[in-house]
């Protein structure tokens, strides 16, 4: 999850910042607003680096450690940018009993990254996920919005080749 140190320097733009400030202004007074704001912030920046957390903390008058505590609690929040293509392998039970564990191991080998890692060129990132609910297609992986189902280890090379 969020334990790895981020090596990519923060490169947020003015437009992103003003979009974030608008989101905060719109939701600031809602009950329990912090989660929806963080979700929208991740939508704007693609991830939640400490710089973004600091803006949210200052604007909402919430201690930074509380923001950080929430960001690191939920697996969907990411402290690191994702690759241009994010490969996500379902390790839910239905996929697992049909061999998604082998698929995940093979992808780690092929891409040379661990769970949650990103290739050095920023092209592919790899993560495991819990059940996307397409159990009829098990085992399943997604690359950004595309879903690939009924997979075998032999299919992986062909699938990755489409994104190179």
């Amino acid at each position, binding site marked *: 999850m969020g334990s790895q140190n981020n090596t990519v320097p923060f490169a947020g733009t003015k437009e992103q910042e003003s979009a974030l400030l608008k989101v905060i202004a719109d939701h600031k007074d809602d009950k*329990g*607003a912090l989660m929806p704001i963080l979700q929208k912030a991740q939508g704007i920046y693609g991830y939640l680096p400490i710089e973004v957390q600091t803006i949210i903390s200052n604007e909402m008058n919430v201690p930074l450690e509380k923001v950080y505590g929430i960001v690191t609690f939920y697996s969907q929040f990411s402290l690191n940018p994702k690759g241009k293509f994010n490969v996500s392998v379902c390790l839910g039970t239905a996929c697992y009993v049909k061999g998604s564990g082998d698929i995940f191991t093979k992808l780690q080998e092929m891409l040379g990254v661990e769970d949650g890692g990103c290739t050095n060129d920023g092209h592919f990132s790899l993560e495991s996920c819990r059940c*996307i*609910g397409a*159990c009829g297609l098990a085992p399943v992986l997604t690359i950004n919005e595309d879903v690939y189902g009924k997979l075998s280890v032999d299919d992986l090379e062909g699938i990755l080749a489409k994104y190179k």
Partner: protein
Amino acid sequence: MYRSHVLVCGGTGCTSSGSAKIIDTLQAEIIKNGLKDEVAVVQTGCHGLCAQGPIVIIYPEATFYAMVTNEDVPEIVSEHLLKGRIVNRLLYKEMITENGIKSLNETDFYKRQHRIALRNCGVINPENIDEYIGTNGYEALGKVLTEFTPDQVIQSILDSGLRGRGGGGFPTGLKWKLAKGNDADQKYVCCNADEGDPGAFMDRSVLEGDPHVVLEAMAIAGYAIGASMGYIYIRAEYPIAVDRLEIAIGQAREYGLLGKNIFGTDFSFDIELRLGAGAFVCGEETALMTSIEGNRGEPRPRPPFPAQKGLFQKPTILNNVETYANIPQIILNGPEWFASMGTEKSKGTKVFALGGKINNTGLVEIPMGTPLREVIEDIGGGIPNGKKFKAAQTGGPSGGCIPAEHFDIPIDYDNLISIGSMMGSGGLIVMDEDNCMVDIAKFFLEFTVDESCGKCTPCRIGTKRLHEILDKITNGQGTMDDLQKLEDLCYYIKENALCGLGQTAPNPVLSTLRYFKDEYIAHVVDKKCPAGVCKALLSYIIDEDKCKGCTLCARICPNGAISGKVKEAHLIDQSKCIKCGACMEKCKFGAISKK
């Protein structure tokens, strides 16, 4: 009026296999063939038979086309819609009999089902409130607001015997009664749509296929307990369900079915969505409420129960999606109707998500008390490739495995608990002889270790220790002493963890220990994995008769474990072998096997 309606499944399963594109092509082909004013295309929710997706159904004939591809669409339009000839090769093959085509409701998959919660899924367009109203939607809310007192609503739900479908099985009516009894300036109605059990997707299908039923039921609950505000906490991993709920809430507000003075009465009720962010523990009720409040989703001790102090410290009820989906039907048909189905203590129906090693993966809704055998063999179509049934797993990471000896057990809450499993939210994963039960227990523990929120020590550290022992066993380093330790630790965690997640986390270990102890012993004593799953316990062996002595394997082996002369049989040194399997993959003569 259209003469034909083409229903295309837009659930997650079918969308993943390309149904959105099929809709586009259908519309284009219909225009091309000049049928624009005669044929309508409707995107529906899930039909349940996900293994056969993408699914296209054409009414009024109710022709059920399965595994449709984009390339098939022009033929469907020109043959079926234009010329009225059914495209036989695309029909769901179960429907084809010697005497012609039988109806979908007579196929093994559908004929034993009884759809209450899923009644509209795959039937109506979930993005159109008029279609919901057309199938008696919001009638129950109207009836309740104009004819029932809040106490009468609660009595109906109590009389129906409905129990929570999210896992625990607490009587829904009692929950409402407790919340009604606590006076407060504000109360809340929450919906748990944080369906986190891997392999369970019934709540998602209800939300995708029939979102209004949840809104209607929440409004009824609001009237019953005296709440004016509701929250739906839904997984962000379900984008289609989130979209459709947003559309549904917008339409309901527009029609005055949510908001101020509903049906001209002085009852007001509104609903907001809150998205989860990927934390399994947030399916636990106190953790879920903490998360809605905008905090780390950690559970807290009970009492106080949510009915006293829940969301924002106010009396709150929390029910699961499937539970809500039953409510309007209970109001309309009466509690006696609902209570007439099921077993003595488990009334009504239950939706199960069939997955794993089973032919008909998908969603089924069956009366409580249906035997497991019927679900797997008749409805589920049995195990693929002629393999032998080993176990069915219910209740996800909190549940257990049901072995073949309990194959005839009628499924209800109490029976499942009595054999060491639980209903859970209704995921039912089938495993065959190729699955290793120790590996499965380890898989679930890996999940709980990952998802433990860390607040209480028994769960945070205990599950980690359980996982370590299981890892040791699957690596062939376990001792008989470890099995005893495993069991003792399981009971310790069960008794001492703070929330339901921790208390049930040892169940996968306990139930596999109970029914598959011989597999554990094979790992510990014989250092063998009978199912051939645990890598460390496998040996790669060269068949002397098949080996041609080509030396390829010896050159490929990354650890120099293979030796032999040219044109003579080779040998693997087991002490050097790292079990990577590279030799077996490359051998051209099929001489290497793993045992």
